[in-house]
């Protein structure tokens, strides 16, 4: 999709739509990049008391500009406290204190499993991706998970070469049977729409489509035969306030350190 909307870009509506899902007071484990942008937009608009936790250690971070990396000083300086990375994973994530894990991904499949490890065979990779980072345990242990990524046949694939982090595995009750505690990915937010898992089969279903996008566009950007909800909604356009807040945030960020992009490390 190109930006045919007069008022907002595809990335902007993706970010705003993702941010809307975060309720105020939620404790959110934030991945860097798009999830971090969406989570901070939520904090700056409708969810001032959202608690943002980054795997590098900050708890309750309130950055005024977006972090370029997951360990920016801005996160430490604005946090309620900064703990060691082991404590983040032990006491806070594994401890069961995270409401929402907000993740990006290189690839997802129809059951919202995530690959960030390799394209091609593991032992002879065509493309070596960065790897798991915090995602396997965030995907498993947060009470629910939101995934945000751009939708294309390369990113929405029929069969993942590698499951880095579990969504619903083979669908149905496979996730529960594997003993994974969290509810799993309850929304996948893309630049074209929002996909949510079928309550029974757990297959991702297009339940909301962004304004100006056609179902054919979404289908063409999906590497499997995408299910479309009979009650397909149109995603509300970004509220002017939210859009202004997002653009202010990105302008401040660009002035502070250039355009932000995703990455741990």
């Amino acid at each position: 999709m190109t930006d045919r909307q007069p008022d907002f870009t595809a990335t902007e509506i993706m970010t705003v739509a993702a941010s809307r899902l975060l309720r105020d007071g939620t404790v959110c484990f934030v991945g860097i990049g798009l999830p971090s942008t969406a989570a901070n937009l939520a904090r700056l608009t409708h969810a001032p008391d959202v608690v943002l936790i980054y795997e590098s250690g900050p708890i309750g971070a309130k950055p005024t500009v977006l972090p370029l990396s997951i360990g920016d000083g801005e996160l430490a300086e604005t946090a309620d406290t900064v703990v060691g990375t082991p404590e983040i994973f032990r006491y806070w994530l594994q401890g069961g204190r995270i409401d929402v894990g907000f993740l990006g991904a290189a690839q997802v499949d129809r059951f919202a499993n995530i690959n960030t490890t390799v394209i091609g065979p593991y032992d002879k990779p065509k493309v070596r991706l960065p790897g798991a980072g915090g995602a396997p345990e965030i995907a498993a242990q947060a009470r629910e998970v939101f995934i945000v990524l751009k939708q294309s046949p390369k990113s929405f694939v029929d069969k993942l070469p590698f499951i880095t982090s579990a969504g619903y595995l083979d669908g149905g009750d496979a996730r529960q049977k594997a003993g994974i505690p969290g509810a799993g990915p309850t929304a996948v937010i893309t630049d074209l729409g929002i996909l949510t898992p079928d309550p029974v089969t757990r297959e991702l279903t297009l339940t909301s489509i962004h304004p100006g996008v056609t179902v054919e566009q979404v289908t063409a950007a999906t590497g499997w035969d995408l299910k479309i909800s009979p009650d397909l909604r149109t995603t509300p356009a970004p509220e002017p306030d939210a859009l202004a807040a997002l653009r202010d945030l990105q302008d401040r960020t660009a002035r502070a350190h250039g355009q932000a992009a995703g990455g741990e490390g």
Partner: protein
Amino acid sequence: MASITPLRDAVAGLIRDGDTVALEGFTHLIPHAAGHEIIRQGKTDLTLVRMTPDLIYDQIIGMGCAAKLIFSWGGNPGVGSLHRFRDAVEQGWPHPLAYEEHSHAGLANAYVAGASNLPFALLRGYTGSDLPKVNPNIRFIECPFTGETLAAIPSIRPDVTVIHAQKADRRGNVLLWGIIGVQKEAVLAAKRSIVTVEEVVDSLDAPPNACVLPGWAVSALCPVPGGAYPSYAQGYSARDNRFYKEWDPIARSREGFAAWMKRHVLDTDDFDGFKRVLAETAGREIG
């Protein structure tokens, strides 16, 4: 007891070919100067460990110093791929790189287990992931009380851990703050340790319950102001985000990388020399 040592001597004396070495840091306080010194001294056959290998590991791997990497996320944070790491893994250049791959939760717990002198770390982890299929060091055990299944991975016990910290006092006590990552655990898990610091002061003036490493638990202490560049040291320097972006084209080609490393690292004497040359080639103030 930590002796205050020039970085060159510490690397020469404490890091041996074939060692397992962890240069830790989570975006913040990454020991770049020490990494350069490893490259200058031509260490070989290292097993590198780090949760988040980034530019300095790209350089060490690209220069052929490493035989194996144990890691959980390898990339150029905020920019993209590590091209030298990918070239080693995908094409075996300059030679094949073995690797053992975990999640952050796994490695963080493995450092804790190492610092605690336990042979393995216990966690809820890896469930539903394919990682246990490709990593035989991820196993599962049963709780002797509840019967639940839990993941087990070997603890990390590096021969040498290298970190950068903000300051030390003259007795070698080290203080770091801000994003402290796994550095304390990585030092305590290791047989030997090198800590580069921004400055050595008369008194640490550490706040209560701060992250302090007693001097007697550290092998060598090396004053290297700005030694984390292009990473940062909170209270001392800012992250040079531009350099992270500039690294991407430098590292894309083998030839460009090799020429850059020769000019900036091999042909310079130390980290100050590196920064002087970089200031010339980048056409701006560095550090």
